[in-house]
């Protein structure tokens, strides 16, 4: 891999690296015949970013076929490098713009170094010999063409929208109808939901360059990644496109108007109110059919909050009536497929087949291990997903305040104690049956479906055993939980605040 970037384009290249560094810790570089691609994925595998630079972006571009004849051609044209190392080269954008005339990038296999050579003014040459790691492909499978919803506008518009949200805001919800699009902040599990600032703004279709809403939907995704993309695009004010379908399906943010490069950010979206984890799918069906009577007593412990966490979306559904219910059903099953697909999409097969060539940083090596461990942890922690859901159930007492429509209220109460999927059922009270169902299934943690049941002592024990010292960090939890779709089956498990889990335990005992 060998290419030369002219000074004029170097700013774009540097901004891309800064943007990628905000997403993940490693950049996968690959020189393909049709261009140089830089990809990264975040640690929870819920966000994928890819920048692709076509050969015309460079002064000179030698693709993989032109590189020296080495044993394995593929190893020559792609590598993985830590973003920290990359940032040492492109640290100061201002200086780069002022002094650098061109940048030469060479993947030197003999020396095992990725070499950035900045030719600056006055004949000064700065050479950065960075260690890289051999890697496999990082590929995400996504399709923009089949997205029913497309929003395209200048990035300045999105930047202005995002500026309205607090800097600490983790996730935002985008709801679209043919008449308008509403963006509001997403309230995660909060101890005092009444005291949380809510921000909401609406835009008319006229504000967008292209506004196509095929399916009225609501998607929730992480704001941090959008900000990362905007930091890249706002200076050049390129048109930013959003391709999405429905909650649970990934949303793709793309800058595809410039001929010389292309950026794609694929973000996981929060699964719809019915299901937080794919594992819930299996349990949803039987419970829905049970149609057990909902217990009118408000048992916080029984409350299945995922759907109640989003009263606004619930309201939206009621407006649509039966249709939405139907859709909910499909949605509940939909996300599962998407989540598992997302999982495979993001699989970079690094876990097994990676050889750390000269890992400059120990943490790079650790990162591989971490991903593997996390994946397995997720498998093991299926049981803890419910405890996560249950702790949100604590919010239920506050939630009903937001619910106005009687139908919603009716639906909420039963669903409060229902399994997440049961909201689909509408007013059918399901709790007691679920309760029994849960009790039955609880002991057998092996199946994810099982674990969807209320947190039992066993679940919590598992949780405690697996993650004995889980820090009660909400933010961490919401990062996993909030964008759980793309991770392995259950993403919530590892990070619950222990105190909440313990509270859950006592209630279970009472019920028993």
């Amino acid at each position, binding site marked *: 891999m060998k290419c030369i970037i002219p000074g004029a384009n170097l700013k774009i290249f540097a901004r891309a690296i800064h943007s990628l560094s905000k997403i993940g810790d490693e950049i996968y570089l690959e020189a393909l015949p049709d261009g140089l691609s830089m990809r990264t994925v975040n640690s929870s595998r819920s966000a994928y970013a890819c920048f692709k630079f076509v050969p015309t972006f460079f002064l000179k571009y030698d693709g993989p076929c032109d590189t020296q004849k080495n044993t394995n051609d593929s190893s020559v044209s792609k590598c993985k490098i830590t973003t920290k190392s990359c940032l040492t080269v492109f640290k100061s954008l201002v200086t780069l713009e002022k002094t650098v005339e061109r940048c030469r990038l060479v993947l030197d296999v003999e020396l095992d*170094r990725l070499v950035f050579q900045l030719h600056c003014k006055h004949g000064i040459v700065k050479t950065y010999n960075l260690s890289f790691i051999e890697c496999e492909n990082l590929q995400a499978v996504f399709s923009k063409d089949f997205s029913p919803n497309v929003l395209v506008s200048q990035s300045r518009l999105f930047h202005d929208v995002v500026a309205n949200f607090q800097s600490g805001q983790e996730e935002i919800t985008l709801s679209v109808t043919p008449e308008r699009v509403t963006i509001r902040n997403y309230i995660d599990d909060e101890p005092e939901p009444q005291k949380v600032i809510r921000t909401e703004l609406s835009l008319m279709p006229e504000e967008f360059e292209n506004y196509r809403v095929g399916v009225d939907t609501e998607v929730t995704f992480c704001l941090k990644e959008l900000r990362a993309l905007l930091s890249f695009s706002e200076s050049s004010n390129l048109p930013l496109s959003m391709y999405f379908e429905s909650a649970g399906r990934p949303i793709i943010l793309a800058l595809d108007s410039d001929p010389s490069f292309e950026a794609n950010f694929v973000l996981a979206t929060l699964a719809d109110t019915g299901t937080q984890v794919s594992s819930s799918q299996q349990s949803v069906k039987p419970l829905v059919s049970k149609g057990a009577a909902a217990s009118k007593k408000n048992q916080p412990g029984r409350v299945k909050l995922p759907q109640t966490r989003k009263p606004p979306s619930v309201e939206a559904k009621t407006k649509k009536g039966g249709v939405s219910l139907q859709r909910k059903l499909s949605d509940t099953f939909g996300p599962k497929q998407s989540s598992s697909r997302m999982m495979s999409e993001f699989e970079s097969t690094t876990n097994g087949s990676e050889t750390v060539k000269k890992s400059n940083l120990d943490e790079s090596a650790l990162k591989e291990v971490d991903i593997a461990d996390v994946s397995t942890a997720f498998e093991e922690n299926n049981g803890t997903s419910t405890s996560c859901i249950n702790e949100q159930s604590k919010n239920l007492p506050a939630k009903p305040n937001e619910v106005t429509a009687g139908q919603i209220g009716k639906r909420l109460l039963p669903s409060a104690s229902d399994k997440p999927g049961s909201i689909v059922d509408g007013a059918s009270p399901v709790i007691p049956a679920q309760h029994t169902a849960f009790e039955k299934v609880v002991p057998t943690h092996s199946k994810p479906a099982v674990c969807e049941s209320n947190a039992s002592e066993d679940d919590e024990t598992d949780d405690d055993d697996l993650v004995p010292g889980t820090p009660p960090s909400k933010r961490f939890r919401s990062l996993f939980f909030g964008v759980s779709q793309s991770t392995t089956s259950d993403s919530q498990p590892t990070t619950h605040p222990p105190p909440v889990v313990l509270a859950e335990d006592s209630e279970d005992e009472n019920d028993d």
Partner: protein
Amino acid sequence: MALSTQDSDDDSHYVLVAKLDNARNMTTMLKAIHFKDTAIVFASENGLKVTVEDAKCVLANAFIQSELFQQYQLRVEQITFSINLTVLMECLNIFGAASQPSSATSLKMCYEGYGHPLVLMLEDSGVLTDCSIKTQESNETLDFNFNSANVVNKIIIKSECLKEAFSELDMTSEVLEILMSPDKPHLRLSTFGNAGTIQSDFPKDSEMVEQFLCSERTVNRYKIVLLKPSVKALMVSMRTSIRTDNRGFLSMQYMIKMDDGQICFAEYFCSPDEDFDAS
């Protein structure tokens, strides 16, 4: 406004009296070498020399020549005392670090002799401040014995291009390697950090290089933590002279321009990082 009201007779018991219309000149020079709390002040008929040293490996001097002062009186040949540089800087900046051309802080520095404190009188827009800073005996000053005669390589370069290289030095590297050679690369600064090896090459024919006198190829390594403070002086300087002698000792001299156009010099000496495993 200068403190012209001061009667010179009152100064008769002072061994050193120095008046400066713009105290900023002094603060700029002292800031360039302020990386340790203690400094040694050496006053002679030529002016003041303030020295700061660290770990017996690095030494910095700031020269404030007598011509810079509006009045400079020294009743003895030379005097030396040690003082807390941090406190001195704070006193000099007592009217605020930001300076406006209209209201410059004027300074009168007095020293009675061995055992007496250093007395400062600062005036700004009619407000007068008196400072009395305790002095200490000066320890043996470190002398690297850096002779011009032993200089092997010398490069004079505009500080502009060095500023960037030095401020972006990879601090995860333990050493900074300076290579000077009559052949390419003429001047190379290298660091070996966690990210990898970073090299900055400066060709001798660049318009940034004003003088290039290299007789032989020398490669020397210096501990980066020792050299990092020199960036302070580099930032305010216009020109830098880099010299190494036959022992590998590094001398960096910085030409600093004052607000009123006068030139002062600061210099850093650093001992090389040796590998002792071979012998």
